[in-house]
């Protein structure tokens, strides 16, 4: 089926004239119109713009320029947190429901330059704050594997859309697991790069020292291609890394002989569902069969990652979201009596409950008298978590474990209990605190629901994470499976 093809196969078919970019774009738009009413994975579609981009790509495909543009003419979707000029950029919030961005994010610019065709903007937790996609102003996204379950979050729309093959790939962002956890819960591959690898310019900021954009697609090889186009130094992002972008696909086919995989005992303890543990072990066996060796390690401060995160991230979000004041853009309340009333009611009406909670936690931990006890303490603990990794990487090349302690949970199950929801990110958050790259790879199914294997690597080891992913995917077909009903329309 056309929609089951990966990025490389689409590129070859477009060049062979099997179908045009316009035809491919229409194909995916048709899939979206048939299936997305149920999934709600898109907030905004831009069919006309997409068809115009596809027509331009078809013209270019006939020229020599196509040789250096591997992604030319291939449709995809952006998480609705990347600013797109002339198109609504809501970040999943009522606050920005009417916000039409006057400029493009760097990632948007780069993928457009690569010739990719944007079909629309995907649903997400409000301002990326959530692990279930239930905090979106536009309603929850449903997991294609079982629609009464969540797709994970915050990049839940991107994950669900890719899992149902409504798009061959999508972008996501990851502040505490927001690419990796939904990738795991929906059965696709998702990569969070090293902090600073992909420009944050034009990403609606949540927690600036943790936010990082990355690719989401069925296979590791797709993610390698997408990351190639997304990464690179950008003067407009003050924390952008000044490093040459490596060839992320260069080592995909390199055997794993000698690669040491560390298994932290803290990632396999209490709270881990047995069905998830079984599948993670099955995936690890395949990596061992491919030449890797397993080493028992410890990351002793693991339990402190979630608590440290829920100081640092809310603190940064309370500051970042102060720009939403009802003056220059976004929601404004009716008939404000004075400026303070305008601020308070605009923000009170524009933000949902979870965003308000995080802003208040952040405001509290930064307020006079509490800064040292909370914020400074959390930054010190962050250092300890980082030291754990530094020590581990003297003994192993990558660290493996489950991406999420459970498979996808039911809508509403954790919605009323923020702390329980927060703990679902227990294995992903530490990589953000340390700025390390991490990938979630499909590792089979437990009771019909996808399980994710997470690999965390040392700084700048994206190539190696993708290599491990590709080697795993040479021996398994978990990443190729999709729920049966989405096979019906071809």
């Amino acid at each position, binding site marked *: 089926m056309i929609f089951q093809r990966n990025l490389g196969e689409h590129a070859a078919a477009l060049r062979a004239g099997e179908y045009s970019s316009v035809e491919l774009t229409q194909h995916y738009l048709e899939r979206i119109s048939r299936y997305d009413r149920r999934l709600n994975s898109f907030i905004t579609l831009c069919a006309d713009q997409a068809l115009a981009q596809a027509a331009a790509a078809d013209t270019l495909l006939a020229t020599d320029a196509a040789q250096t543009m591997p992604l030319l003419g291939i449709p995809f979707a952006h998480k609705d947190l990347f600013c797109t000029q002339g198109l609504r950029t809501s970040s999943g919030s009522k606050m920005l429901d*009417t*916000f*039409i961005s*006057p400029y493009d994010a760097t990632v948007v610019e780069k993928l457009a330059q690569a010739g990719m065709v944007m079909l629309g903007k995907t649903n997400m937790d409000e301002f990326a704050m959530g692990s279930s996609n239930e905090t979106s102003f536009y309603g929850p996204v449903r997991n294609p594997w079982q629609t009464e379950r969540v797709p994970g979050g915050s990049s839940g729309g991107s994950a669900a859309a890719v899992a149902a093959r409504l798009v061959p790939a999508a972008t996501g962002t990851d502040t505490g697991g927001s690419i990796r956890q939904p990738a795991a819960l929906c059965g696709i591959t998702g990569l969070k790069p090293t*902090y*600073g690898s992909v420009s944050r310019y034009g990403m609606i900021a949540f927690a600036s*020292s943790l936010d990082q954009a990355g690719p989401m697609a069925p296979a590791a090889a797709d993610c390698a291609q997408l990351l190639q186009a997304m990464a690179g130094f950008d*003067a407009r992002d*003050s*924390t*952008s*890394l*000044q490093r040459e972008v490596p060839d992320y696909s260069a080592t995909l086919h390199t055997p794993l002989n000698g690669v040491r995989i560390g298994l932290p005992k803290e990632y396999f303890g209490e709270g881990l569902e047995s069905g998830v543990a079984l599948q993670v072990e099955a995936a690890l066996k395949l990596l061992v069969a491919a030449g890797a060796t397993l080493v028992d390690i410890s990351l002793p401060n693991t*339990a*402190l990652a979630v*608590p440290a995160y*829920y*100081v640092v991230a809310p603190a940064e979000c*309370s500051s970042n979201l102060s720009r939403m004041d*009802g*003056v*220059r*853009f*976004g929601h*404004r309340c009716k008939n*404000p*009596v*004075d400026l*303070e009333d*305008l*601020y*308070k*009611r605009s*923000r*009170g009406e524009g933000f949902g409950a979870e965003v*308000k*909670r995080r*802003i*208040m*936690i952040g*405001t*509290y*931990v930064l*307020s006079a008298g509490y800064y040292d006890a909370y914020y*400074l*303490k*959390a*930054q*010190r*603990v*962050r*250092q*300890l978590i*980082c030291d754990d990794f530094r020590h581990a990487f003297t003994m192993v090349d990558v660290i493996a474990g489950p991406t999420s302690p459970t498979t996808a949970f039911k809508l509403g199950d954790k919605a009323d209990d*923020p702390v329980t929801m*927060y703990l679902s990110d227990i294995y992903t958050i530490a990589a953000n605190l*340390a*700025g*390390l790259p991490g990938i979630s790879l499909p590792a089979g199914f437990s009771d019909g629901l996808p399980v994710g294997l997470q690999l965390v690597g040392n*700084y700048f080891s994206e190539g190696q994470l993708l290599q491990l992913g590709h080697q795993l995917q040479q021996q398994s077909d978990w990443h190729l499976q999709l729920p049966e009903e989405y096979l019906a329309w071809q």
Partner: protein
Amino acid sequence: MSLQSRDVEYIAHLARLAIDASEVPQYAQSLSSILDLVDSLNSVNTETIAPMSHPLAMAQRLRPDLVDANPGETGRDQFQAHAPQVSDGLYLVPRVVE
């Protein structure tokens, strides 16, 4: 750490958030449970640990303080196209000075 309703009202004021009075007890409860989670940070001694400010221990990159793009009036109109209330290129808010 247990927050009372009046604490929530004060924090909401600092954050310039209007919270419905009926929701204050609920926020007091959920914010307290988050702070309880955070309190486990005190289980480790960090006296000798330097706080981490950047994941890659990098210095902040600086640039000359020069205008590198001047959007002009067209740019201003574009930026203000989605503003709640503008007039003659100015953002309008309720009167601040009598």
